[in-house]
């Protein structure tokens, strides 16, 4: 069985030209079934395939309408109903599992047909839900979206009509975004290391003034490696008294740690500093 989908669609689209360009509806025992037999005798296997090709009762009805080249608005309800019922009968006799929707549609068609046979009668109820108008409306709606689905299928599609173009990324150093550090994590790390080292017992550490430590670093960084720098140049007036005190304390600490040396050539003469490790 080849491509059960294509056949009824093709027929529906071609309308009257069905006979001109027959496509096999199905293959039964290897032989292509080109056309639904007029007498509606359909080999059971073929019918199963044939029916699977329909997306429900609206689709089947549309097919029948198109086959007769009818305008939806012009449906010959009697004829369409007869054919539809025939399909349903065949399906039932071969115990083809029939979706409930097909039976509901059969009932709707039967109702429309029976109304048409009734003599003219006016009642509000009738006007409010004319099953025929309702059916036409549904067929029209369904046909629009059936067409929309067909159109959508023709849109150029990735993996079928086009392919995403890619190129190998350039060779690059493994750049890794830098991790974020939370202050608390750093402090917890410090606490642990200090606990391990038992540093908390040292008053020296506890009383450390970080502003002094910071200034010590700044002074060291400011000292040229190869020459003396004047003592005064390390103070800046705009820092105020506090700044001067911090700088002074830092300097004393640096001297104590033997990181810098202080030179005064003469009494009350200018004082100079240089890094001790300077070569």
């Amino acid at each position, binding site marked *: 069985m080849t491509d059960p989908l294509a056949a009824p669609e093709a027929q529906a689209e071609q309308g009257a030209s069905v006979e001109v360009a027959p496509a096999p509806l199905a293959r039964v025992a290897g032989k292509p079934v080109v056309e639904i037999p007029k007498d509606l005798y359909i080999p059971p296997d073929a019918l199963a395939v044939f029916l699977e090709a329909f*997306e429900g009762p609206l689709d089947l009805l549309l097919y029948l309408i198109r086959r007769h080249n009818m305008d939806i*608005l012009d449906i010959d309800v009697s004829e369409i109903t007869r054919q539809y019922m025939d399909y349903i009968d065949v399906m039932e006799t071969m115990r083809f599992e029939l979706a409930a929707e097909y039976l509901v549609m059969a009932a709707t068609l039967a109702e429309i047909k029976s109304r048409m046979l009734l003599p003219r009668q006016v009642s509000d109820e009738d006007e409010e839900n004319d099953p025929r108008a309702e059916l036409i409306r549904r067929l029209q709606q369904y046909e629009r979206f059936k067409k929309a689905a067909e159109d959508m299928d023709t849109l150029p599609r990735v993996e079928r009509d086009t392919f995403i173009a890619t190129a190998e990324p350039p060779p690059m150093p493994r750049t890794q975004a830098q991790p974020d550090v939370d202050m608390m994590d750093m402090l917890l790390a410090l606490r642990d290391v200090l606990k391990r080292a038992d540093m908390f017992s040292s008053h020296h550490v506890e009383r450390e003034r970080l502003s002094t430590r910071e200034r010590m670093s700044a002074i060291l960084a400011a000292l040229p490696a190869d020459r003396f720098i004047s003592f005064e140049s390390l103070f800046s007036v705009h820092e105020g008294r506090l700044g001067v005190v911090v700088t002074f304390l830092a300097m004393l600490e640096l001297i104590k740690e033997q990181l810098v040396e202080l030179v005064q050539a003469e009494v009350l003469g200018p004082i100079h500093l240089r890094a001790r490790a300077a070569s």
Partner: protein
Amino acid sequence: MTEQQLAQIQCIVEGALLAAGKPMSIEQLRELFDEPERPARQVVEHVLTLIGKACDGRGFELKQVASGYRFQVREAYAPWVGRLFEERPQRYSRALLETLALIAYRQPITRGEIEDIRGVTVSSNIMRTLLEREWVRIVGHRDVPGRPAMYATTRQFLDYFNLTNLDQLPPLADVRDLDEISREIEAQVQGEIDFTPSDTVQPQDDADDNGEQTLH
């Protein structure tokens, strides 16, 4: 901005689009540059135009889709390029395409509403496939009993079908003028069995039609 700087931006954008392998928005492209050198939107747009032109006569093109710009192989060469891939391109069933079309054209829409129009139940498989492919997502629940999920299409859906927005979908076939239709129905009904004219269907059709227009 010098010619040279522009040329560099063009090469960077081009390289990034090829390396990314997925559509990139103008914003995403701009973020490749550090703040002081980051080109303005207009510059990136200009560069994209130049890149698009540079593809003339080549085997690939620059395409704008919903989530941005991407390079893709031209349709004309799909018959050859498609042979790279062992698997035949997937065919989608009519049921799936009809369901997808209804979601695309009538979103947001519930499964029940889809079933009403198609006249058959929509299999759970189809909905699952559409959700898994990320063509469709649930955008809310309708405030009716059962609170059914409402479905809408995604940017990936548009990307896949080479569209930048829903307006680019093929237009829905016209339903003929509603007055005309109801007149015809009346005329026909009358002609056949001498029925009394009825135009009760009209309001309902009107409502439907308006619903569709808001989508476009």
